[in-house]
């Protein structure tokens, strides 16, 4: 398959980069000259850049669809301007690749990104550092596009670190507030822990495959199966592929906020709300999912890694949903909800439903961005109302101070309601289709990666999701208001420039799922997204199956049998292709249709239950709620306090490292430097004995005060005149002893 050279791909990336640089420089120059930055100019540049990127991306996807395909239906466009890193082992070019997978991502990033740019114009109006905000936002778009378009591991890593940086800068946007600056640093450092794993994974890939190019690596997975399936430590231990994929997954845990590295995401809400919507909900945090999907052929080789991915995902989704049920800060609820939904996406990856993961990633981008922007509207409106009434005390993000806002913010409420129904998985909204597919794939008989337990937890979490989302809706918009009377009347609906993006996203949350209606429900146009993505997964699967000896080795090594099936008589487009290509085929018999349909009923049922329960508890029966809370007692406290994980990390890793650093610093001063000074002192002592001079220069040096330059020159001359011989001998002996000690150790 030839890669089609398509240079405009560079434009997708360049437009946001130019926007970022010009806004940044213009802003700095203006600030230096003491001239205020014109918001019009800044937003025109930023919006122009992101819209241009969106246009070119759309053009690219159209070009991709019309590009010539290979026999498996795989299409790809690429652009490779120059070679970046060259060594004996690897050669890494700057290479942008637009294939079906990155096409979906690029549209989400530029589309949602542009909407959030529009929203930000109103939201950030009047902020100090307006230009800085938009420069960072464009820089983020640039990095995210590099991430999804990068054609090799290292370029993906460039984008990966780049989005991390922008996240750091934007979380710390209100840098004069300590908590914001601290949250930014926390996000960066926790992400770095993940990056550590990712980097190790990349090193594995580079040394095993001798290249970092995605296409080459993934196609040759089959060829290298023997090497990949060797145990890492001689004859025992995990296989190379397991360690490799788990290292990569550690990176995904960091970026996509999974246990145990999720702690940074809730704190990241210190940034402006549109940033939370774009970076910490819709795009950046899904990078881990994207990366795992991108490397799916590697993951599929290791059942252990698949299981780890699935279980980390499902446990994260459970824990985050539990916490979300108890939070009172509107953004915190949404943040934990994001963590939980990301868990879902990893469940999809772990059970082999990579297409479903991307599908959920996409629908989640729509409804979660909508929810965040909606909450931004609420916060913005509340903030202004408090400001008007001179109330500097109340927290505009605390849902306990809200309620009944639907009357004041009808459009926001409408959008919020639709998005809430979408995330709760009510048919026929987008979340219903994507979540349902994940649950079905987890349950599906014949899917060796799935399991009943995972399905069960996922199903329960679906109910919890509906519960906490309707709890949020009820506490914010419904019931009798808890806002003070005069404040309540100061709450106003926001201007259309801000409402429009919210409403567009609401429409997408409703309709976004229709591009991928499961076959059991649909008639004509079902599973379009999967058909679009299928050649992507098919491409590498065929290559794997083609290598017969590889499969034989694989089977003898006790590897997954499912891969062996692929090389059998089943044609790529044979039976069961409606199941995602990467899930081993099971027939789609009558029994399974029934199963799938009944599972759909199950999901809808628990969603409705959660919704009704939340409505009833928070609107009609607060006394029952109190009763439940008091019954739960300590457990409730633990959940409200987020299982004390932050405190635990603070006490162990953070303080531990600081203590170690402190002790080492003392050791450095007292022991290592002390030894050097000790040798020096001993020398002086020897010199005194042997020379009997007044040569106490080291003492005076150690005391170090008030020495004149003349004297220094004098001392220097004396050293050169030979009285330092004894000094050097003793010092030599001392350091020699030191080396001997080190050699022996």
């Amino acid at each position: 398959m030839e890669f089609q050279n398509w240079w405009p791909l560079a434009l997708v990336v360049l437009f946001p980069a130019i926007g970022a640089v010009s806004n940044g420089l213009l802003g700095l120059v203006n600030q230096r000259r003491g001239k205020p930055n014109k918001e019009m100019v800044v937003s025109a540049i930023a919006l122009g850049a992101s819209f241009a990127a969106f246009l070119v991306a759309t053009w690219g996807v159209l070009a991709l669809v019309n590009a010539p395909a290979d026999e498996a239906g795989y299409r790809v466009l690429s652009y490779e301007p120059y070679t970046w890193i060259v060594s004996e082992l690897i050669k890494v070019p700057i290479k942008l690749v637009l294939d079906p997978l990155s096409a979906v991502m690029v549209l989400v990033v530029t589309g949602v990104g542009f909407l959030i740019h529009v929203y930000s114009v109103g939201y950030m109006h009047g902020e100090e550092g307006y230009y800085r905000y938009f420069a960072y936002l464009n820089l983020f778009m640039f990095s995210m596009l590099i991430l999804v378009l990068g054609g090799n591991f290292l370029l993906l890593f460039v984008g990966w670190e780049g989005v991390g940086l922008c996240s750091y800068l934007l979380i710390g946007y209100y840098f004069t507030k300590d908590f914001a600056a601290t949250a930014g640093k926390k996000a960066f450092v926790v992400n770095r822990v993940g990056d550590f794993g990712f980097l190790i994974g990349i090193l594995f890939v580079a040394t095993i495959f001798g290249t970092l190019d995605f296409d080459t690596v993934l196609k040759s997975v089959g060829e290298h199966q023997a090497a990949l399936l060797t145990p890492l430590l001689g004859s025992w231990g995990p296989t190379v592929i397991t360690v490799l994929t788990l290292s990569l997954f550690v990176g995904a845990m960091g970026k996509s906020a999974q246990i145990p590295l999720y702690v940074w995401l809730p704190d990241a809400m210190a940034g402006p709300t549109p940033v939370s919507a774009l970076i910490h909900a819709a795009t950046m945090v899904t990078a881990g999912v994207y990366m795992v999907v991108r490397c799916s052929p590697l993951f599929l080789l290791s059942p252990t890694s698949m299981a780890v991915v699935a279980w980390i995902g499902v446990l994260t989704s459970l824990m985050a949903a539990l916490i979300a049920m108890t939070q009172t800060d509107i953004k915190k609820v949404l943040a934990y909800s994001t963590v939980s939904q990301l868990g879902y996406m990893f469940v999809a990856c772990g059970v082999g439903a990579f297409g479903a993961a991307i599908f959920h990633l996409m629908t989640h981008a729509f409804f979660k961005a909508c929810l965040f922007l909606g909450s931004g509207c609420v916060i913005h409106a509340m903030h202004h109302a408090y400001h008007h009434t001179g109330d500097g005390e109340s927290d505009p993000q605390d849902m306990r101070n809200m309620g009944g806002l639907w009357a004041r913010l009808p459009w926001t409420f409408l959008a919020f309601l639709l998005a809430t129904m979408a995330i709760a998985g009510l048919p026929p909204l987008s979340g219903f289709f994507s979540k349902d597919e994940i649950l079905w794939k987890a349950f599906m008989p014949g899917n060796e990666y799935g399991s009943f337990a995972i399905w069960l937890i996922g199903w329960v979490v679906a109910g919890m999701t509906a519960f906490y989302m309707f709890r949020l809706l009820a506490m914010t918009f419904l019931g009798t208001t808890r806002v003070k009377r005069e404040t309540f009347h100061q709450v106003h609906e926001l201007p259309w420039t801000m409402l429009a993006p919210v409403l567009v996203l609401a429409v997408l949350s409703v309709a976004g799922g229709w591009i991928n209606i499961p076959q059991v429900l649909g008639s004509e146009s079902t599973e379009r997204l999967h058909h679009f993505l299928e050649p992507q997964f098919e491409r590498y699967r065929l290559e794997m199956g083609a290598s017969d000896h590889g499969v034989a080795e694989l089977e003898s090594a006790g590897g997954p049998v499912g891969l062996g099936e692929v090389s059998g008589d089943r044609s790529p487009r044979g039976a069961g292709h409606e199941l995602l290509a990467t899930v081993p085929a099971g027939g789609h018999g009558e029994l399974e249709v029934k199963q799938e349909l009944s599972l759909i009923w199950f999901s809808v049922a628990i969603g409705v239950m959660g919704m009704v329960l939340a409505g009833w508890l928070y609107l009609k029966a607060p006394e029952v709620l109190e009763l439940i809370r008091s019954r739960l007692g300590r457990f409730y406290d633990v959940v409200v306090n987020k299982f004390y994980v932050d405190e635990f990390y603070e006490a162990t890793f953070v303080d531990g490292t600081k203590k170690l650093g402190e002790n080492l610093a003392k050791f450095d001063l007292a022991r290592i430097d002390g030894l050097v000074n000790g040798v020096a002192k001993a020398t002086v002592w020897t010199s005194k004995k042997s020379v009997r001079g007044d040569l106490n220069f080291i003492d005076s040096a150690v005391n170090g005060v008030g020495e004149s330059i003349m004297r220094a020159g004098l001392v220097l001359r004396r050293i050169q005149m030979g009285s330092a011989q004894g000094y050097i001998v003793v010092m030599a002996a001392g350091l020699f002893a030191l080396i001997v000690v080190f050699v022996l150790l």
Partner: protein
Amino acid sequence: MLLTFLIFFPLVGVAAIALMPTFGLDKSYAKWLATLTAGIELLCSVPLWIGFDAGATGFQWETKVAWIESFGIEYHIGVDGLSMVLVILTALLSLISIYCSFSGITEREREFYAFLLLLETGMIGAFVSLDLFLFYVFWEVMLVPMYFLIGVWGGEQKLYAAIKFFLYTLFGSVLMLIGILLIYFHYKEASGGLSTFDLVKLMQFPLSAQGDFFLGKSTQWWAFLLLFVGFAIKVPMVPFHTWLPDAHVQAPTAGSVILAGVLLKMGAYAFLRFSLPLLPEASIAWAPFLMTLSLVAIIYGALVAMMQSDMKKLIAYSSVSHMGFVTAGIFALNYEGIAGGTIQMVNHGLSTGALFLIVGLIYERRHTKAIADFGGLSAKMPVYAMLFLIATLSSIGMPGLNGFIGEFTILLGIFQVSKVWAAIAALGIIMGAAYMLWLYQRVMFGPCDKPENQALKDLDLREILTLAPLIVLMFWIGLYPKPLFEKLDTSTRATVEWVRKANEASYGAYTNYKHRTSLQQSHGVAGKEEGSLLAPESAAVSRSDRVSGQVVWSLPREGGDWDRHSASVGGGESR
């Protein structure tokens, strides 16, 4: 001739500054004279980069003149990729350190700039020397001006720091001299009475790696140890590093920039230039130990840096950590490690140089370097904030900037030797982010609540200009490092092949090198694709053939020496 000019031209500046009173020039002209000299020097070093033939083996711009004939000492200079890059870095940082001192140095200006120029002569001389004795002379020449820069224009404890720096380094160089003499006498014996300090000639008779010279160890082993102490103090490697924080904290900004940017490179450079080629077997034997020290330096330096309360001290310890990366790369003894180590030397010069400048800028304004005295500067000094951020990101290895290129390549090198070592080194990257961002946060973020900081002025044009070249280079190396890789290719390859050839058996055992070739036959990128580093014809040749097919520095064939040489290296050679 170009190199000779580069070495001695700064002395013209020194002379001009010395003669200033004779011509009745006011002392305020000293800085301009120095800037002019360093500027011309930098311009004249650029042809080195442009004219450097990346494909040619051996040294370029070579000059060889007899100096002290009775001992076979020659004025032999020349550059390969490694030293060429470092010479240009030296010229650049010298100019910057002169230019950055305009406002900070108000006392005894003439001496100050004269010392800086003298230092430049020493540094460039050391980088281009191919004669061990000549190298030693320049090595010592560097010491004196630095001693005075710290001792005269330094902070409160300048004398302590200056003397510590001087004696510590002097001690190392004495041992180094003994090591050099060991090599010299060995050559004399092996060649039947010929005397030389010439690196290229000395390589013909590698020191015996077997036998019992002293305490059961071979001559090479001991020679390596002696050189090691001298170089390790200069790098500095843990545990020889304690002079560094003192020197940095006390030195004036220009001194810190030169110290971090160039002088620390001298040790790592010397390992590559002398230890590896002259003592290859010992290098392999010592590599695990040096690797361990390097990894300790990475982690230890980072942890100690984290808890410092003085900005300069923090950056000094971060230098220990970063130089640990460099030495770890070098002693991975493979292509990626050495190429990455060399690039990281340049990177560290740029990023740490920039960081010291940045601290210097704020020190000139507030006369304090204590982190606790700052906070919230971002709001007052946006340009400063931006440049500080870029330097910080470069230092913590953000992709797109230079640091990442070096660190990644080094990790790739170490990983091929040991996965565990690579993992330990990579831990240093997490810590780097932690301490640098914490520093940045404490200085730049938060409320600006100190009254003294309220009136801080942002950078003026001169200050921006001192930092600008470094920032540009950071981006350049980060985004398009290929030319750098290419210029370094031949020298890196030569060093690796030389070590590899010295003792195939122990090299393979150390670097896991055979394992690697079998695994990546299918995709071994080198040589396969257009524009690769290898010459096209050698791509077809298998790796082991290439070893002997490659000319490793053009060795002169004098008399019958060559045959003896190939016999002593043993096998493989067929000339």
